[in-house]
């Protein structure tokens, strides 16, 4: 209810002080619009105008009658400070002329320069929602898109392609990379085009991303397959060991991760087929087979020391 005012609002503004107690921090009572000195109770400033909303809107469902006259929260970072006023369609009888057409029709080009950008933000939001990405990734994606859009170096490319590539980069930068195929699944753009835009954006923004590792995908793939934590930890260990021992040179980390999951699951009680793992990871089952063949000879060394084998190492399937 009662807030403490911030002491020095700014040197430009005249300081409101209690005449008897110049050092005292004034307390703001916004219901009455007063600023009160806590020492002596003197009302120093009155008729302070409150800029908060008149009603507190708890829910956003009833979008038709929102009593707040202040409007939606601004998105200053992304919209370039849009302070335009939009006139909506009329609701009363007076807004229609004699033929039944509405009198004021202008609802277009509210922010023509940013229309494409707003569209892209909507698209990004839709894509991210499909794979349940958190708000921070979406914000990062929007920022990246804004930077790319303003630079105009990729102007010829489809906005959706750039948006998808920005989403991919944002996931990478946040430390939770998504494979290109996962981004393809929620976007209408082909993997090739997303890859091209990805490289172009990195060049345009002069940034780089870290290399993907096998561990980045373990938790997602394993939980999608319904594997218990023990198996997931084992698979992570196997994949890391395999890369350290250089058993799989030149193989994509996704393929190695899939093969490690296969080996770990086959050694546990929850056996998954190559096809299932291939579906989740987006790798072909022959690819899993290839990588598995490379790590199979050293299987005994790859398992973590405290792993409980349901199927012993020598009984692992040999493909």
């Amino acid at each position, binding site marked *: 209810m009662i807030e403490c005012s911030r002491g020095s609002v700014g040197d430009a503004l005249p300081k409101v002080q209690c005449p008897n107690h110049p050092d005292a921090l004034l307390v703001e009572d916004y219901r009455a619009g007063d600023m009160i000195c806590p020492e002596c109770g003197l009302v120093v400033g009155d008729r302070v105008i409150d800029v908060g909303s008149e009603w507190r809107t708890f829910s956003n469902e009833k979008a038709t009658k929102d009593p707040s006259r202040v409007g939606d929260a601004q998105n200053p970072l992304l919209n370039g400070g849009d302070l335009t006023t939009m006139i909506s369609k009329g609701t009363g009888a007076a807004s229609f002329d004699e033929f039944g057409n509405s009198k004021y029709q202008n609802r277009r080009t509210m922010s023509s320069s940013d229309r494409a950008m707003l569209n892209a933000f909507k698209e990004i939001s839709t894509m991210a929602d499909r794979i349940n990405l958190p708000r921070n990734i979406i914000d990062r994606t929007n920022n990246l898109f804004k930077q790319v859009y303003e630079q105009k170096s990729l102007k010829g490319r489809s906005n959706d392609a750039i948006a998808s590539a920005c989403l991919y980069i944002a996931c990478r930068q946040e430390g939770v990379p998504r494979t*290109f195929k996962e981004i393809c699944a929620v976007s209408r753009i082909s993997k090739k085009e997303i890859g091209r835009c990805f490289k172009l954006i990195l060049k345009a923004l002069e940034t780089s991303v870290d*290399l993907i590792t096998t561990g980045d995908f373990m938790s997602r793939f394993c939980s999608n397959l319904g594997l218990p934590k023990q198996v997931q930890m084992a698979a992570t260990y196997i994949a890391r060991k395999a890369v350290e021992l250089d058993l799989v040179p*030149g193989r994509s980390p996704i393929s190695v991760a899939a093969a490690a999951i296969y080996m770990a699951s086959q050694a546990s009680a929850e056996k998954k087929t190559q096809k299932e793992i291939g579906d989740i990871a987006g790798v072909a089952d022959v690819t899993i087979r290839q990588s598995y063949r490379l790590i199979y000879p050293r299987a005994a060394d790859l398992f973590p020391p405290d792993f409980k084998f349901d199927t012993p190492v020598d009984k692992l399937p040999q493909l």
Partner: protein
Amino acid sequence: VIAAIDRRDPSAERSRAARLQFVRLDSQDITSCMEQNNSLPPFAQGLASPQGAMTPGMPIFSPMMPYGTGLTPQPVQNTNSLSLLEEQQRQQQQQQQQQQQQQQQQQQAGASQPQGVPGVSGQTPQLYHSQTVTTTTALPGNTPMYTTPLTPMTPITPATPASESSGIVPQLQNIVSTVNLGCKLDLKTIALRARNAEYNPKMVCTGAKSEEQSRLAARKYARVVQKLGFPAKFLDFKIQNMVGSCDVKFPIRLEGLVLTHQQFSSYEPELFPGLIYRMIKPRIVLLIFVSGKVVLTGAKVRAEIYEAFENIYPILKGFRKTT
């Protein structure tokens, strides 16, 4: 011979030049070309009477004529005539000069011949398919560069200690070139009447293994077009792209390389298994693979390929896999 010819609007002006782009000829194709040339007399004779399309005054090069008779080989380098005989003679002269030079240099420079003698080294050149135009002929040993005719095929390195020179020479795999025939072409006629010609609206040719062979193949095809009755000339022969490949013979840690050379490298295992290194100083793109194989492309002259490889070799040595 499959030639790529840009389609031009038939209503275009005469002065508009048609660009003839060439592509792949195997060594077998060359010999078969020669044989076909020999079997073309009725064809050639049919065109012997000037239809106004052939340049008058130029001796009609009939393949039945034995070499060296009736023709005045012009030692002009930039000849526009389409005589293949002159071309071959010129190449032979250059080859002889080059061999003499090599012998002299061998006597002078002593050792330090790089081991990668072309065509003899263990790296068998492999023909790469590219969508762009290149002329290839796989005749070993016949490779002076067109622009500097005395450049030997194996670059004789100056007497540097063995540790500095890599001793490996990239082999050229593909050369793309264009030439301006300087006349309008009717693609359908060419497609129907020339041998080994396919008609696709965009015909594509594939590569040569050396610059001279690229030029030779270009001339041969221009000859074919000329025999069909178009006043073809041979203007602006230019090599657009050269591709080379080699092997450093040790595995490479690409992850390390991308960490240190971030601004030049791009390594995305999801997209492509090799690291794409864009070198600035000779503007060359190198594809570097874990196995140690390196592909260099984007060069206009052979020296750029060699220079780029010499630049990257010490860097790659630093990222050699130890296990």
